[in-house]
């Protein structure tokens, strides 16, 4: 029959004694106590049996270590490396974009060099003039009739837009009073509603008679 030792403080040391986690001083004190206490010797045997009963299977230390996350410092290093690449890529994209914009605006073109630039200028009412202009200035006089296309070599109104400019006419404010009057007269002369039926023009069908020389002759 097993009993409990009356020395509670000594009993508290027994698990540490079995697990060898006591200080040298405590370990020696337990050694001395065991020499005279059968209850504590019996309890030591129970503790040792419990330790044996739960002998754990050997775990794979290497596998566990391999599964662990990287150290914070190496993780930061790799994160910084990734960031540096991203920043470099972003700078590259910005430079390419800026270069494209400057190129389109002609920043890289030496003065005096002509470029092919297309611009659409505001068209005067009821005027559809297609003009090709060389280094240009004031718009071509709108003496041309409505719905005609003219190619002019007039100076550009703006020195910003150099080169060939496609224009659908100048502004009304550029016209003289006489030109405006002429334009208005032409507009008044127009039918507001076009004819519903265009005039029919019939071409008679003429039968062809074969000739002796192999040709044909209209009858």
């Amino acid at each position, binding site marked *: 029959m097993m009993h409990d030792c009356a020395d509670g403080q000594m009993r508290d040391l027994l698990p540490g004694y079995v697990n060898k986690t006591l200080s040298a001083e405590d370990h020696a004190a337990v050694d001395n106590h065991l020499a005279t206490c059968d209850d504590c010797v019996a309890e030591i045997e129970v503790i040792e049996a419990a330790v044996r009963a739960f002998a754990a299977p050997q775990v794979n230390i290497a596998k566990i270590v391999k599964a662990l996350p990287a*150290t914070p*410092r190496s993780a930061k290093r790799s994160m910084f490396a990734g960031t540096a690449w991203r920043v470099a890529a972003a700078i590259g994209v910005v430079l390419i974009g800026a270069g494209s914009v400057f190129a389109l605006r002609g920043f890289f073109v030496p003065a005096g060099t002509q470029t092919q630039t297309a611009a659409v200028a505001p068209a005067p009412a009821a005027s559809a003039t297609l003009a090709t202009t060389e280094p240009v200035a004031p718009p071509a006089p709108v003496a041309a009739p409505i719905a005609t296309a003219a190619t002019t070599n007039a100076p550009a109104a703006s020195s910003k837009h150099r080169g060939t400019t496609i224009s659908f006419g100048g502004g009304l404010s550029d016209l003289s009073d006489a030109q405006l009057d002429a334009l208005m007269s032409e507009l008044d002369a127009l039918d507001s509603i076009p004819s519903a039926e265009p005039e029919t023009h019939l071409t008679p069908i003429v039968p062809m008679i074969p000739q002796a020389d192999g040709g044909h002759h209209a009858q």
Partner: protein
Amino acid sequence: MDVGGRQDDGSADIALIERWKGGDQRAAAEIVQRHAQALARFAASSGEREEIDELVQDTFVRAFNSLDSFRADSTLRTWLFTILRRLLLDRKRAEKRRRNQVELDEGHAVEAYDALDTLVADETAIQVRRAMERLSPLQKEVFVLRVTEGMAYGEIAKLVGSTEGACRVHYHNAMRSVKEFLDDA
């Protein structure tokens, strides 16, 4: 007074953690080396039969993933055991749900115990293990942590969420129960 506990106050673990944070991966290996076996023993004592390796590995992975939040209010060992204990509780809950769905195969459970017995070499150890099956889960936990790991009552109390005094009572009641079982055997 918290007597009978481990003399290691955890300062060695703190130093290893600092080394690991400084980029020394070998420090992680040393931490695993120091605690893996004890964790595996605790997992086995709580009734885990399989996947103990995975449980221990999960414990370390979770611990290292949140090592920045470790404030050393307790020792690293207590913290690791706390993580493992939560994992074990999660598994037990999942197992309980599964058993509610699937009819319990009693024969399979007996076979598992028999297989464990063959691993334990001596009859006394087998009897102690069987005696411990009669303990309450908390008594068993306290008893195992005390006898197999030599943990102090204060450390156990933190781990199981109890008080030092209550853990002392649980331990002595468990020891008395085991002795009585062995006397009757």
